[in-house]
């Protein structure tokens, strides 16, 4: 069972990240995935998050308790959710938007300038897809094929291609990050 949390500020497509991941895992990767999101005033303000529990068996308890994967695309979200990340968890951040402290314990931290890469593709609204590609490469919880299959219906049809490109960029960046990481160790 893997507990994943996506976080950022409203409008960054954080809920979408959870939906795409959950849909990919449960419809195209033959796993179980339960997605929940923060509702209420919180969702309208600064830090918002969506959570996905992915498992080989049916998910019972629907919420995350101690996530092992945290994605933060804003400083507020990082500040708010990082303390809940598992000691041996993985933290993914946007390097331009999040000033991270040195990683706690055995936490592995990976960064990507997702917003900048999205802007290079034409619009910062693709940030979440760049981040999702990156997340997919690093976490290996869901296959990239499943993620891409999950996109129709969750991104506007006319932006489907560019969203896929954004995803691929992030994914590529993730693979490169991993290989550099391996060389280091």
């Amino acid at each position: 069972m893997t507990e994943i949390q996506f976080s950022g500020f409203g409008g960054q497509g954080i809920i979408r990240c959870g939906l795409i991941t959950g849909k990919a895992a449960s419809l195209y990767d033959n796993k179980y995935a339960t997605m929940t999101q923060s509702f209420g005033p919180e969702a309208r303000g600064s830090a918002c998050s969506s959570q996905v529990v992915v498992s080989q068996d049916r998910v019972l308890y629907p919420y995350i308790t101690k996530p092992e994967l945290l994605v933060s695309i804003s400083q507020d979200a990082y500040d708010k959710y990082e303390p809940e990340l598992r000691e041996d968890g993985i933290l993914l951040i946007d390097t331009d938007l999040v000033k991270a402290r040195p990683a706690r314990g055995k936490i592995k931290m990976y960064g990507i300038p997702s917003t900048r890469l999205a802007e290079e593709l034409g619009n910062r609204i693709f940030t979440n897809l760049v981040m999702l590609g990156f997340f997919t490469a690093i976490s290996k919880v869901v296959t990239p094929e499943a993620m891409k299959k999950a996109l129709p219906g969750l991104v506007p049809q006319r932006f489907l291609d560019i969203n896929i490109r954004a995803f691929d960029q992030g994914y590529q960046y993730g693979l490169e990050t991993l290989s550099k990481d391996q060389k280091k160790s």
Partner: protein
Amino acid sequence: MKKVKADPKGVLTGAHYLDGDFAIAEGALAAGCRFFAGYPITPSTETAERFAERIPFVGGIFIQMEDEIASITALIGAAWGGRKVMTVTSGPGFSLMMENIGLACMMETPLVIANVQRGGPSTGLPTLVGQGDMMQVRWGSHGDYQIIALSPDSPQECFDLTIRAFNLSEIYRVPVFIMADECVGHMHEKVVIPPADQIEVVERKWYDGPKDKYLPYKPDKDLVPFMVKAGDGYRFHTTGLTHDERGYPVINAECQDWNVRHLSDKITKNADKIIKYEEDQIDKADVVVISYGITSRVAYRAVQLARKAGIKVGTLRLITVWPFPEKRIAELAKKVKAFVVPELNLGQIVHEVERCSAGQAPAVLVSHCGGWVHDPEDILKAIKEAAK
């Protein structure tokens, strides 16, 4: 009872990733619901939104009424106009509906209401989970009557139980309630919608005898009267007043006795056909955890931990909450040491368990006021305590 295959126009066959609210709307469309009247209220609004988006391509009515009183009343009218009908709401709107839920029962009107429960009382916790309306759904309108209430624990079950709710409402001519909760309503999971020809839909119990012999409230063998709709030439009458088989008001104790017992009997005497629950490892259990809705999934985590610790614990998940599985609880009460009943309220269904167990096994409540689900540790503690 006439069963037919679902009308493919309303069925979105395939695997989807949906939240419970959306799944309720899809269940309704698959079941043949073509009339929805409602009023927005968190956390149920998404069902209304989904229905409003889908119905123009299916053929039917979505209308946002001026309040929940209007919504439920329009449903009753629309059911008598021949449609399968539904609305969704949450606590405050549910309270507003109470008087006319009684009218629906009295007129023996098939309709479906989903209550996506949030924390109460009053405005309470609009966006957060609760299970505080479980007694209200049973007793909230005045006088004696019976209803059917189902409790889904997942988006898939929101879909499945909505279809069942429509079928039960047609079979028994009674309001059927889907007592969901914010957590199930808002969580996304895989929902598989079968092909239309694999979905069984119960048709209304239409009368087809001679016109001049029609009696709107004459019970049939299964205790349920036949129905007609406005416009078919029967020129029938129906009223919220105590009435006889003709539907004419009769204001005396004798008719009251006949009428009220009938409303009750048609459900209680058919209870075995209505009640559904899911049991696990119950045979040798010392402790049985009884739960429903989202709480059953939380409880299950506690149960797994308890089993690891060597405790013989079984589970009983209520799928039908009302009518309550009295017989089964009474049977189990003879065999087990105790029941553990976690609920997102200060104790509602636990009283039913106590009543049915009649002193043979204690029922231990694990209460929670809502706003979040239980910490499984709290349920585990209660299981351990009860197993002693």
